[in-house]
């Protein structure tokens, strides 16, 4: 017993002594050390055992630590382990490399064009010059930049673009099944010229030109030669193709795989990246490594940001201004004052129109009018949303581009744009509609007391704060609204089906942010009757709203070219939305949060930074925001 005690005491004392001497982070080595680095002791790479083709990273030998002044650290993008590097897969969970979305992430794979949410335009990346529709609006043609190359040195050609599309269709991956209704084919006219043929409607024109255009800035160009290698490897099996870890994938972007395990993912710059050609960026991006430590929750990421271990954070930080006002940290956002970021998406509260009473406009509008949105902004967003006084509600996000697309001076619309907390107005609306207060103090519709449950997923704190305000609004006007916060998975499974289960009366869901098809895409998802009351519905209109007049306008807009007509249609849609109130916007939210620590790197995108085209605050990875990587400088220089 005594011997055990002695040994244990020595061990404990030694551990404490050694740990007390330890520094919080190891000093970065400037040059690779001589220590052998082939074995990985506790952590393994995330490559699954699905195929035997997975290989260890070739660049790991000798590198023990990433040099701080060559690495840009991220937080808030990558949650959980990276599973694969396969651009054909829809489940790689590889946030640093793969995100085919409105503002495509172009660190490793590239699109022909990049969307800039600041001005609503697209700029060429792999393409050379703007794209053009033909006179009959049946196809788009664009040229490829002759300087564009893959990381193996071979040029990016039109055959790559065509073969990528053919592969999407052949194997029915997410892009294939999504775009097949709008794009008929992608053809290589010559090695530098691509033609995208649209699916034509009965009028002989493209069924939806907006979606066809969006393909050019949303979906990657993948190398034909590598795709053929992959196809041979999986024997043409679609499931295996999409499940392949693709550690050997060819890419044209500035960064490629360096290291990944359960704790972090690191990408390393390809110093032969074609984009340093004068026709594109003219130089290499500043950081040599892009690294993302995998934090378990927001708090850990925030602590790391404050400690200077994170440079770019896509996390929501409550009261972000306290970082520099109170803590005197070199942390900043795109805008120096509230709302600190550019609002782009519209988290929306939906009504289940099949719930008793919620088919009545008066009840829906009264609840929406009574909600205190300023409190939501203060509690849920800590001031990081534009107010409805500053940006009156519509279907558009606060960006200048979208706001210009409807007639905000129309008096009929102005009369409909409630700013919230209008308890008296809501009560009057209900009284006038005959929905009066019963003996128990609660409102009744046709003799039945109104009871509703308002929900959002558990743990989404800003949404929960919003739902609490909805319940409070109900209380203020005499409607019993209780709250419920199920886990995200059962919630999402429930709201995407029809009919909605009992107890799903009022609920929050996402709506589209900024993108090349917006605001049409958002309106389509919010209001199009084709999605209403359907099962397995991942599109939108989850409350089951049907309005043929709205559908006509929604289906017409993508085919229009006359700006005046487009504006008239959008204005009409806003009018319908604010009159019928099938759902209502709770707040404006940034496309991505963009908070940066300037202790190592500086010259991030910020308001008035003079960049042209303007670099959006999308964490330097999405859409035109990638240009921000080329402007970074070290603080020490």
């Amino acid at each position, binding site marked *: *017993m005594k011997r055990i005690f002695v040994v*244990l005491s020595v061990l404990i004392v030694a*551990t404490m002594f050694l*740990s*007390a001497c*330890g520094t*919080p982070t*190891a000093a*970065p*080595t400037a040059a690779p*050390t001589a*220590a052998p*680095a082939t074995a990985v*002791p*506790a*952590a393994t790479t*995330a490559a*699954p055992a*699905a195929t035997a083709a997975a290989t260890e990273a070739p660049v790991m030998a000798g590198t*023990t630590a*990433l040099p701080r002044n060559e*690495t840009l650290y991220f937080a808030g993008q990558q949650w*959980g*382990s990276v599973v694969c590097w396969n651009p054909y897969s*829809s*489940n790689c969970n590889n946030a640093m490399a793969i*995100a085919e*979305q409105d503002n495509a992430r172009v660190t490793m794979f590239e699109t022909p064009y990049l969307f800039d949410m600041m001005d609503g335009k697209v700029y060429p990346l792999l393409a050379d010059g703007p794209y053009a529709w033909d006179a009959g609006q049946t196809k788009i043609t664009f040229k490829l930049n002759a300087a564009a190359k893959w990381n193996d040195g071979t040029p990016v050609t039109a055959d790559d673009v065509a073969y990528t599309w053919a592969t999407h269709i052949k194997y029915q991956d*997410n*892009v294939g*099944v*999504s*775009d097949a*209704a709008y794009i008929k084919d992608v053809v290589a006219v010559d090695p530098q010229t691509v033609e995208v043929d649209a699916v034509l409607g009965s009028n002989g024109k493209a069924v939806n030109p907006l*979606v066809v255009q*969006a393909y050019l800035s949303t979906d990657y160009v993948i190398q034909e030669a590598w795709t053929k290698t992959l196809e041979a490897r999986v024997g043409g099996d679609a*499931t295996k193709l999409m*499940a392949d*870890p693709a550690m050997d994938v060819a890419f044209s972007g500035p960064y490629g795989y360096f290291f990944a*395990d359960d*704790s972090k993912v690191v990408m390393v710059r390809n110093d032969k990246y074609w984009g340093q050609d004068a026709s594109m960026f003219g130089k290499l991006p500043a950081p040599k490594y892009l690294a993302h430590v*995998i934090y378990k929750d927001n708090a*850990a990421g925030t*602590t*790391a940001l404050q*400690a200077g*271990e994170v440079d770019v954070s896509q996390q929501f930080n409550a009261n972000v201004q306290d970082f520099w006002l109170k803590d005197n940290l070199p942390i900043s956002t795109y805008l120096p004052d509230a709302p600190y970021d550019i609002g782009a998406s519209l988290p929306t509260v939906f009504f289940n129109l099949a719930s008793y009473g919620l088919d009545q406009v008066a009840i829906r509008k009264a609840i929406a009018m009574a909600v205190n949105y300023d409190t939501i902004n203060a509690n849920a967003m800590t001031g990081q949303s534009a107010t409805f006084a500053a940006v009156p509600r519509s279907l558009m996000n606060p960006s200048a581009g979208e706001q210009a697309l409807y007639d905000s001076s129309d008096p009929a619309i102005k009369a409909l744009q409630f700013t919230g907390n209008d308890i008296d107005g809501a009560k009057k609306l209900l009284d006038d509609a005959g929905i009066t207060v019963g003996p128990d103090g609660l409102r009744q519709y046709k003799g039945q007391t109104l009871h509703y449950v308002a929900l959002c997923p558990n743990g989404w704190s800003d949404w929960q704060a919003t739902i609490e305000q909805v319940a409070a609004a109900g209380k203020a006007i005499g409607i019993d609204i209780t709250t419920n916060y199920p*886990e*995200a*998975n059962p919630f*999402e*499974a429930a709201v995407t089906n029809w009919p909605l289960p009992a107890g799903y009366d009022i609920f929050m869901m996402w709506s589209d*942010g900024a993108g*090349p*098809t917006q605001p049409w*895409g*958002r309106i389509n998802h919010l209001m199009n009757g084709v999605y209403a009351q359907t099962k397995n*519905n*991942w*599109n939108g209109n989850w409350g089951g709203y049907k309005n043929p007049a709205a559908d006509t306008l929604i289906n017409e807009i993508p085919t229009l070219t006359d700006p005046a007509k487009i504006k008239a249609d959008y204005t009409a849609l806003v009018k319908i939305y604010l009159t019928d109130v099938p759902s209502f916007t709770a707040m404006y939210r940034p496309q991505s949060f963009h908070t940066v620590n300037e202790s190592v790197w500086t010259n991030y995108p910020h308001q008035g930074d003079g960049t042209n085209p303007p670099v959006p605050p999308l964490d330097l990875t999405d859409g035109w925001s990638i240009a921000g990587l080329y402007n970074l400088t070290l603080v020490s220089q």
Partner: protein
Amino acid sequence: MKGYGKYFLNKLIWLLVTAVFAFILNFILPRLMPGDPVAGIMARLAQGMANTTGLKAVYEQYANLFGTNKPLYVQFFLYVNNVLHGNFGISFSQYPRTVSNILSSAIWWTVCLQFPAIIVGWLIGNWLGALAAYLKKGFDAVLMPVSIFVSNLPTFGMAIILLVIFGVDLKWLPTSGGYGFNMIPNLSWSFMWSVIVHYQLPFWSIVLIAIGGQAIGMRSMSIYELNADYVKYSRFLGIKDGKIIGYVFRNAMLPQITGLALSIGTMVGGALVAEIIFSYPGLGFTLLNAITGGDYPLISAVAMIITLMVLLANFAIEIIYGFIDPRIKAAQSD
């Protein structure tokens, strides 16, 4: 030894029967959860996409792949077949990563954090508890309230206190990660050192609470034994104090060993709180994500490992008791 044979056979049969029932429950119970694993994947995809036309078809693809649209008994037989071939299946939430791959990368962090923490906490706690029972008076008066206080601190409370004091304020130790945020795993001393340094706070957040709990338990058992008749009798016989204490602690230790076995059995569930607060790699957080995402294969696999470890630990304890507990020895030779 004939009596022993019957005793062990009896325990073994119960082990196997329990294992079979646990296996069946491990399969059924996660699948009774509300929610839909494919919905989690779809939700991740749908956000940020303007063109969601194809998601319904993608949903069908995944549902077919995972077999979630098949009847439960069909899924069960597929599952049994796979497990008998050593294949735990493919994770839903981390598709196409296999469950074995996820477990193998996460389990070592969990075991290396939990196992030493449990052992160290157990040893120190029992030693302090025994000492308090023996010394009584001053030492006991301090140790008892401190142990009660520390053992009843919730794990997240202890973890956050240590994090704030040693990580944020004093900056002696790092606040998150299994190793340095700028390190790449390799066999250099600086990496090993980084792992040790990052190990401290999660380790001590578990150990300190374990010490408190063990100390109270051991103290109570020791006081009970010290007041036993055979102790007084031995003293009257003139046997030395040291020898008596040896007997006392050997008896007092028995329930503590049972507790230790159970702790080791359940340790694979991961130190969830420590992992979240310190962003420490391990199985706990993986399991939490699996549960919230309805990842049946991963949940079933981890639950089965925990079940088997608890059963084996219990079985091992019963074997050991058979040898060291003289009452069982006596019962067998009857």
